[in-house]
């Protein structure tokens, strides 16, 4: 019997998810033994035409990482959707929008202006900008165009499963690959990860007081968290109460409060407002002025609460620049 065909593709991502596949270490040999990799831009030289030449549904499963923000990425994922039996959104960016999704808190014009005009290291007196159809030596080239709004993979194509994490931990990847190879699949649309919150599996959970009180916020940029006490109890914003478990508590072990890359647990529609509710309620403010001061101490709420999930929040993007 022919080995099932597997594709890996990347959209708006950093390459960390490719690294996560490589981090399977010896286990990758088991994967290669069991499947035939037909597309993996970071490692293998297959082209668009190779995928186009395949029959619809010929690829057993496509693992797609990265958010979708370019016209080219949209075309690629639509092609892969047609050619694949299953599509797995691989990593925070395709699952929730991820770090590229933070671009939704500003506009594409602002991003372009920063990148090509305002950055202190830029010397661009002519205001040169990338063009969708530049002419070089008499040839017209076509470049992908970025959207104003970064999208999750499932806003563009139908997604069968989600593998969360920035990047997904190797154990979780193997669990998913083995489940797919064995045909033991969870219900369609499942996030392949435990359904508990991070707090429940957190090694510091014991040190969390019964009633959490936050008097003022601290930031990891300016103070060092104690490694043996619940970060929220210390005043550091930790996404633990509003984030799904399954990551192996990698950040906690590195003395870094949870940043929320696994997304909200089941039942929580919006990760950011859920954590806002939790931490604001734990404040000690007794009147309006104290409450205002307390809120002011929380720098960049949108960027912190939705670090990985602006495109999957209820609001999805800012109105600014309209």
């Amino acid at each position, binding site marked *: 019997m022919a080995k099932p065909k597997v594709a890996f593709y990347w959209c708006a991502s950093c390459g960390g998810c490719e690294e996560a596949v490589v981090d399977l270490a010896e286990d990758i040999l088991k994967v290669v033994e069991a499947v035939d990799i037909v597309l993996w831009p970071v490692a293998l030289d297959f082209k668009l035409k190779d995928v186009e030449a395949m029959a619809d549904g010929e690829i057993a499963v496509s693992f797609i990482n990265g958010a979708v923000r370019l016209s080219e990425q949209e075309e690629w994922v639509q092609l892969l959707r047609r050619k694949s039996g299953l599509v797995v959104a691989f990593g925070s960016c395709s699952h929730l929008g991820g770090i590229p999704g933070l671009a939704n808190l500003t506009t594409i014009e602002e991003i372009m202006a920063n990148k090509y005009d305002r950055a202190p290291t830029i010397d661009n007196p002519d205001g040169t900008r990338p063009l969708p159809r530049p002419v070089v030596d008499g040839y017209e080239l076509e470049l992908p165009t970025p959207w*104003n709004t970064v999208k999750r993979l499932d806003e563009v194509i139908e997604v069968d499963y989600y593998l969360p994490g920035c990047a997904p931990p190797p154990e979780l990847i193997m669990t998913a690959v083995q489940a797919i190879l064995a045909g033991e699949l969870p219900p369609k649309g499942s996030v392949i990860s435990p359904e508990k919150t991070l707090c429940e599996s957190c090694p510091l959970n014991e040190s969390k007081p019964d009633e959490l009180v936050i008097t003022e916020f601290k930031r990891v940029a300016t103070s060092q968290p104690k490694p043996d006490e619940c970060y929220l109890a210390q005043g550091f914003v930790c996404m633990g109460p509003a984030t799904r478990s399954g990551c192996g508590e990698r950040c906690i072990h590195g003395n870094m409060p949870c940043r929320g890359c696994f997304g909200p647990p089941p039942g929580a529609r919006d990760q950011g407002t859920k954590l806002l509710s939790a931490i604001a309620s734990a404040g000690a403010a007794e009147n309006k002025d104290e409450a205002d001061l307390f809120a002011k101490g929380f720098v960049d709420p949108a960027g912190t609460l939705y670090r990985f999930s602006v495109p999957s929040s209820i609001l999805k*993007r800012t109105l600014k620049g309209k």
Partner: protein
Amino acid sequence: MATDQFEPRIVGFLCRWCSYTGADLAGTSRIQYPPNMTPIRVMCSGRVDPTFVVQAFAEGADGVMIAGCHPGDCHYDVGNYRAMRRVPMLKNLLEQFGISPERLMLTWVSASEGRKFAADVVTFTETLRRLGPLNFAGETKATDELNLKETAPAV
């Protein structure tokens, strides 16, 4: 009476113990106030999850009012304090999403303050008339398709 003035849509989360009763009193006392608010009775202002507020904006509200018992009067002791601590933080969050903090109002209305309830609705309606329509979903959708073609300068 037909006028051209903008009629904002307000979602009001009113606590069951004080503010909803206060709104009821405004009604039974026949106090006139603008009909722009859709009241939603909740058990406590502390029950108003910030998720409800963003959902209201995403679904077309121009403003959201949260009304609860005066501090010290909460039926559940501290629910209104939780609301009081969440609202300023939520306003900061909304501002980053381009929603004016003025579109979210927290107020205290006791069961005997029908007149204050009516006055708050009047003030809030006027504030929102000044700010104009929000139409969050429509406006953000319209910006999705903006891309490099429109933002690149002509050569």
